[in-house]
């Protein structure tokens, strides 16, 4: 049976009136947009000190003392202690996003990448990463790094594949291949901040508010009153989904317009946001259908968010938990939002959308079943 437009509009109008009469919910969304504006304003005003991470392969830790790689690491470590802007970390400690290492805001990186052994001896490939578009910010760190490397290895052969920023001053026996990665943009930039914020807005508008409104309706018996009126359960559910998706859409559009206006035209971004919102609405409906009171429903929603965060942490830190991420549509959506903010992705090539769609459909089916059988009573 097709939903009747007038019924849908009446129900959506009801939800909108409830939102208007619940200033706390509106304030929360307003806070998100305000935060975006503040982020933009603070970015132009401040010039924070730039730090640098020296990143070495995990295998370096296992080399015995006296081995040149171990000693090199030790020297770097000792020198780094004298400069609080420099940190020495192993590859495994750097968070990854879509197979790309992600650094904190305003952080450069000098990545030591070990190449396979050759007859010429061990080879290290070095990749530079820096925030923003100007590579000059790397200069002080390269001035610090190169003398240590040259002192240690005695000889450095430079094969440049991109304009060098700093030249080694001497050469010895070990071959170092210097690769400049070029600008990869500000890795913890407004894109990442916007992606996080968009995900939070989706969560608040689609999950938290859905849980709050629906469980309140359920606790008061309003849903039963509506269900006994001429509207169908399909219309009731559709109106709720459309309202919360619309609300999330407006909130997201505001954030994107402030932080990354050019991304407003990216279809892949909107498709990802739509699927994410739909998934989170379904999660909200499942939670509201399973809990008897508003307080227990809110607690469950919070638990969902915390469990999600723990899974994400475990999956990032320990490979044994890596597959857990695959069962969460938020994992795919976060990556997709982040990438879609940077550039438009043809939908046919957006491989993450497929598993995401499957997971969202699973949640939607569960929400539909639970809401119809027990969620409205």
């Amino acid at each position, binding site marked *: 049976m097709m939903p009747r437009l007038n019924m849908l509009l009446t129900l959506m109008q009801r939800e909108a*009136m409830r939102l208007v009469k619940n200033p706390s919910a509106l304030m929360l969304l307003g806070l998100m947009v305000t935060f975006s504006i503040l982020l933009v304003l603070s970015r132009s005003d401040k010039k924070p000190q730039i730090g640098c991470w020296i990143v070495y392969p995990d295998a370096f830790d296992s080399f015995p003392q006296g081995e040149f790689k171990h000693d090199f690491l030790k020297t770097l470590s000792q020198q780094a202690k004298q400069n609080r802007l420099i940190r020495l970390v192993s590859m495994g400690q750097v968070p990854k996003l879509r197979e790309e290492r992600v650094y904190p805001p305003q952080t450069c990186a000098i990545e030591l990448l070990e190449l396979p052994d050759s007859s010429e001896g061990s080879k290290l490939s070095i990749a530079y990463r820096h925030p923003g578009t100007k590579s000059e910010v790397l200069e002080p760190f390269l001035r610090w790094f190169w003398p240590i490397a040259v002192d240690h290895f005695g000889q450095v052969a430079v094969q440049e594949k991109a304009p060098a920023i700093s030249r080694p001053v001497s050469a010895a026996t070990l071959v170092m291949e210097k690769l400049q990665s070029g600008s990869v943009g500000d890795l913890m930039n407004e894109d990442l901040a916007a992606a996080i914020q968009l995900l939070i807005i989706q969560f608040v508008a689609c999950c938290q508010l859905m849980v709050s409104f629906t469980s309140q309706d359920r606790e*008061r*018996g*309003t849903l*039963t*009153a*509506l269900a*006994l*009126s001429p509207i169908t359960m399909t219309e009731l559910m559709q109106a709720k989904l459309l309202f919360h998706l619309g609300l999330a859409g407006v909130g997201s559009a505001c954030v994107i317009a402030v932080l990354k206006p050019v991304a407003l035209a990216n279809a892949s971004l909107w498709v990802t946001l739509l699927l994410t919102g739909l998934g989170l609405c379904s999660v909200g409906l499942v939670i509201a259908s399973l809990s008897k009171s508003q307080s227990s429903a809110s607690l469950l929603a919070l638990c969902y968010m915390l469990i999600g965060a723990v899974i994400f942490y475990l999956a990032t830190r320990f490979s044994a938990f890596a597959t857990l991420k695959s069962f969460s549509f938020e994992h795919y959506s976060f990556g997709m939002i982040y990438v879609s903010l940077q550039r438009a992705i043809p939908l046919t090539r957006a491989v993450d959308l497929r598993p995401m769609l499957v997971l969202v459909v699973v949640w939607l089916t569960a929400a539909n079943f639970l809401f119809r059988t027990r969620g409205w009573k």
Partner: protein
Amino acid sequence: MSATSSYTHPGVSDSRKDQRPEAIVIDQLTVKYGPFTAVDSLSLNVRAGELFGFLGPNGAGKSTTIRVLIGTQKPTSGRVEVAGFSLPKDFAKVKPLFGYVPDAENHVEEFTGRENLNLFAKLYGVPFSEVEQALGRLELSEAADLPVRTYSRGMRKKLLIAREILHRPSILYLDEPTANLDRHSTDVVRKLLRELAANGTTVFLTTHDMEEVEQICDRVAILCRGRLVDCDTPVNFMTRHAERNVLVQFDRDGEMQRESLDLDDDESRERLATIIRTEACVRLHSQEFQFEDVFLKLTGQAYS
């Protein structure tokens, strides 16, 4: 005692009422919650335009029966028909035909009384003039633009009734409609229910107020432990189950004493004769047998 007062059904004789079609048919209805049987083989018919009282002590199965009738509870077994439609199969067809006033109010608290009614008027496709009319009938016009959260419990109950009569349902279920209402509001609601029944609406109500049952109900069913104990008009209940008692007050050796005596009991009658003959009888009057006494007698028998 007869069904008295200003609430009597105007102009429809008992014989005409008997000819009306059956609005609600319950046949061998059983509802179980796990091992507990809430409703046990209940059979009941309610005619269109009848004001039907559904009584029973707490936990008798009244609310469960209403839940089955409004389609929110599936019966374990038995047949239920409302307005000619079978439940729960034809739930969607039955929905627009009835109104349901639950015992606990279920308004949107942030909305005003008028906004609450407007919402349901839109859903039922009813003009807003009906909202004003319903508010007026329940004496809520003055408070219509206040948020419901500021309403008293009585006002909330009246708003519920106003909401459920908006679409002029052919069947109206009410769960304790006059609970928490003051004397005047109770009177308003009772008159309204009688008016609705007079205009052909079937009114099916549960209540613990026996005075209400006596005054406004055409027929009454008493339920106990999920089983139907009896079903009849309040007058017939009184005729069939009334006990004839007299209260006698007499002076014995300067001390006033009182005794209640059952006139249907030989021993009591003899005792009354003795008192009248030998003692100084001061007062003698018959004791009114209330509908409440019938209810207590029948439910007490069911429990024993």
